[in-house]
Every structure is written in structure tokens, then in C-alpha cells.
């Protein structure tokens, strides 16, 4: 009959109206600034740079290889290599980024930089409250603003960070084993030819450090 559907509809909306006061399932609104839903572990927004230890500048894993800069589809990464070198996490001397800027107004969160990085130095952050009143400077993050500790990485992506740590430890162990083997080999070599070593060393020293009168 005419009007039946209207009555059904009115009953439905009335049910929803009353239900939103009673059942928590119906009223799913999260009042954002006060209430926050925990972010899913796989969530990502913009990249950040991982550092080990306490000092961000010393601990940066990045070696300024510029792979990410070249792979970045929207070209939002800008890297300047350093002139000097410093040891990386396995103790090998590496150059480091003197400048590492990401323009997050350009970044499209594709995660390709993370995929290509051979040093596990760049990872995706979950921070999303990045609004600023400075349109250009405020959205161009330099390496200090990008640097986050490994502990922070463990906080936001625990599973992934554990995998990364395991991988790095394995690598380090491999390198150390190699170094040890090399050292042992060198020691064995040195033992095999003990007569030559002492004569060579004193001869080199004065030549190097001789002051000019």
C-alpha cells in the first residue's frame, strides 16, 4: 500500500537514532584530537632516517650512496655527499650525507626509497600531523628533522624492525668473522716470516715523521 515504505523507513531511522545513544557499535565516531585509534603496524606516511646509538649525527646509517635519490619517482630527495669519512655500524669507513632533504609536499609515500636502500637507513614513518603554516620551508625536512632512533623504529614497526636488526647483526657477524679470518691469516703470515717485519717498520717511521729543520 502507498506509504508503507515511508513508515518502514521512519522506523529504521528511529531505530538508528535511539540506537546511537545506547549501543557503542552503532556510534563508531572517534573524536580525533582527544581520542586516537592506534595506527595499524603497516601504516606509513613519509620516510625517516634511522640512526643507532645516542647521537643522531654520528649514528646515521645513511652512507649517501644516492640510490634512493635516483630511484625516487617524484624526485623529492636531495643528498649532498660529505668530503670526509666516518665509520658505519660495522666499523667500515664510509662517507655520510652532509645534506639529506626530503620535500614532503612532493613525496608520494611510495616506499621505493625504503625498498632500494641497501643499508636499512631509510624507513617509513607513521607521523601524520605535519601541517605547518610555512608552505615551503616547513615541508622541506632536513636530515636532523628526518633522523629517528632505532628504538623509535622498533616502537612504530616492531616486527619489521626486529627483522632488520637480525639481518644487520648477521651481516656484522659475517664481516667480523671475515675480519677475524683475515687477521688470523695475517698473523699466520706474520709468524711465517718474522724476520722481515721488524726491519720494515723502523725504516718507514723516520721517513714519514721527519721534521724539516
Amino acid at each position, binding site marked *: *500500500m*502507498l*506509504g508503507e515504505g*515511508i513508515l518502514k*523507513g*521512519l522506523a*529504521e*531511522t*528511529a531505530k*538508528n*537514532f535511539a*540506537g*546511537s*545513544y545506547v549501543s557503542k557499535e*552503532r*556510534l*563508531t*565516531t572517534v*573524536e580525533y584530537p582527544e581520542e586516537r585509534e592506534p595506527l595499524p603496524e603497516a601504516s606509513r606516511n613519509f620516510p625517516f632516517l634511522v640512526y643507532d646509538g645516542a647521537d643522531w649525527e654520528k649514528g646515521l646509517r645513511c652512507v649517501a650512496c644516492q640510490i634512493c635519490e635516483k630511484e625516487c619517482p617524484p624526485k623529492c630527495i636531495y643528498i649532498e655527499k660529505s668530503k670526509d669519512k666516518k665509520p658505519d655500524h660495522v666499523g667500515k669507513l664510509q662517507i655520510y650525507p652532509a645534506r639529506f632533504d626530503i620535500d614532503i609536499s612532493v613525496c608520494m609515500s611510495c616506499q621505493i626509497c625504503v625498498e632500494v636502500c641497501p643499508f636499512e637507513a631509510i624507513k617509513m614513518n607513521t607521523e601524520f600531523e605535519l601541517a605547518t603554516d610555512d608552505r615551503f620551508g616547513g615541508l622541506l625536512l632536513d636530515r636532523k628533522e628526518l633522523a629517528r632512533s632505532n628504538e623509535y623504529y622498533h616502537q612504530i614497526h616492531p616486527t619489521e624492525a626486529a627483522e632488520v636488526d637480525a639481518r644487520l647483526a648477521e651481516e656484522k657477524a659475517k664481516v667480523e668473522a671475515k675480519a677475524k679470518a683475515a687477521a688470523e691469516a695475517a698473523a699466520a703470515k706474520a709468524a711465517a716470516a718474522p724476520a722481515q717485519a721488524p726491519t720494515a717498520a723502523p725504516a718507514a717511521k723516520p721517513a714519514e715523521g721527519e721534521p724539516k729543520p
Partner: protein
Amino acid sequence: MIERFDQIFILLKHWLVGYLPESWQTVAGVVLCVVAIVAVYPALFALTTVLERKGVGRIQNRLGPNRVGPYGILQPMADAIKSLTKEDIVPTTADGVVHFLAPIAQVVTVFMGFAVLPMGRNMVLVDMDAALLFYFAMGASAELSVFMAGWSSRNKYSLLGAMRAVAQMISYEIVLLLSSVSVVMITGSLSLVKIVESQNQYSHGLPHWYIFTPWGFAGFLLYAIAATAETNRSPFDLPEGESELVAGYHTEYSGFKFALFFLGEYVAMLSISGLGSTLFLGGWSAPFSFLTWVPSWIWFFGKLFVSICVFIWLRGTLPRLRQDQLMNFAWKFVLPMCLLNLFVAALWRFMGEGWLRWVVCSAILALAYVGLGWEGMKRKQIGRRSYRYAD
């Protein structure tokens, strides 16, 4: 004491006016009433907007506005400040004068309707003999302001919205009038005060409201449909269908002029609900004889509140009609029902007391409703489209 409380506004007016010299008192009294009306209804409009946003929000399982003030009560204040400080833009090709006059014409005509509406015992600004006629004359001028707005904006959407509005409002104006005429036929008067008084009687503790008669019930439903269409409320909000026409006739209005249109629309809703409750729901009379001690104006505004809630409920429920559905509904269902309702009202008047008139009148209306509804909902059976190509 109760009597005093019922007449509190009248006594207040007399007391205030009493400070003035004799010759000024009449004019001052009228001005005071006008000021009261112009202050109270915009305040109710503000409350209605919040109520609507909260209500529709809850219907859609949202919270609605809750940031400004406790529970979002002060949201209209924020809206008012926003609309007052916004830039007032008039398109260069618009007809400046008409563009300026349209919102004013809307608001003024809407407020004029309140002059004849009895809001409580003795609480009527002008006790006119042809009050209903005056009210409908003022209501009809609202169409003019809508068309003024649409035409003067020189915008396709505005004009389309205005044309839709005029087509819709004229169609439903007829329904509105005819459904009210049945009340006039029974009461024998166009005066709204008399209409309320004739309903303010009780037998067995129940009031003689017109909605409790077959023709009154049908008339009230028809009136409610027409009132919804007249005030451009959902599901009849085609003139400002935002998915089709940006905002319809007030697309080119911004800032305070837009706020005036908004105000006019909501106050028209309040006013037409007031008229509806006056005609069919006994105006300011109490629903039970043992409740007559409650001040009359509380009943009037209570009925207003309930009607507003129903408007909001409908808005949260029904989708918008199509233009052809709207017109078919007006001319093929509502209008015949209205004409039939006039006949039934006459029958009711001349059949005398007794149960027979209840049965006969109800049967005629129910049969017509079912029949017309069946006829209207019938679908044309259209087979598969067949193509015949030229050889």
C-alpha cells in the same frame, strides 16, 4: 496564580506600556509584540538548526556538532559570526536591486505570517477576521522572493532552482489551501482565533481537535505534505537540490544574504507548523482536559517543537523526489484527495451526530486512499525494446 502565568506575556506588555502616555500606548503595544516575535522566532531558528544537525547526525549514527559550547549548543553563534563576517558577493551581471531585495522580501513575508497566528490565549498580534486568507497571501509572496532570487542572479543553476521552486510551490499551494478549507467549512470562520476556540472543548476529557475526525486526519496529512513542499524541505527539496543545482536559487548568495534565506526558510517552517497545529491540533489548547492548567503558550510551542522534530525525522529518512514524481504526486494524488476531503467534510457537517458519519467518512477516505495509491503506484509494463531496421 495559574491564570496569571498563562497570561504572563500579556500582563508584561500592559505593565511596560503603562509607563507611556495614553495616546502612545496602542502603538507601543504593537511595536512590543512585533519586537517579541522578531526576537523569539530567530532564536528558535538557531535552536532548530542545532537540533536538526544533531538529530540528523544521530539518525546517521554520527555525533553532530559538539565543539562549540556544551554539546554544541553554541554552534549557531559561530555560524552567525561566520556568515556576518563573510564577504557579500554580488555577481557583476546580476540585477543588483532585485538581488538585494529577494532575501529581504522572503524574510519580511515570512514574519508577516506570525501577525495572525494565535500563540496562546489572547496572544495574537492582530485578530483578523480573514486571518487565514492573510496568512496564505503572505505565504504565496514567498514564491515571489524565491523567483526574484533565482532570476536576478543570472545563473543557470539559480534559475533552474527558482523555476523548480515556483512549479512546486504553486502546485502545493493549492493543496495547502484546499486542505485548510475543510477546517474553514466546519468552523465557519477564517479567523484563526475562532478556529482554535472551536477546538478548545472537551468531552470525556479528550479535546475536539480536528485531527481526531476522519476528514481532519486526512486533511492534516495532506496539509503536512503540502507544508513540507511549501517550505522546500526534504523530500521536496528540489529547488535547492545540492547534488543537482549547487544550491538552487540561492547559489549566488553569500554572507548575510544567504543567512537571511536560511533564516527565512526555517522561520517559514516554524510558521507553517504553527498554522498546522492551529488548524488541526487545537493551537494552544491542551491535549487533555485535566492539563488545561498548563499555560496555553507552552502547548503551542510544544506542538511547534514536535512538528519540527517530525520535519527533521522526515529529512533524515526520505530521499529526494524526482521532478516528475513531485508533479504527479501533487496533481494526481494529493489534489484529488483534497477535493474528496472537502466533500467528506461537507458530509460530516450535514450528517449530524452519531456513529454513522464516522463509518461513512472514514470508509470513503480509506477507499480513495487505497484506490488512488494503487493507481499511482502501478507500473507500466514495458516489454523489451525491439528494434526494426529498414530493409
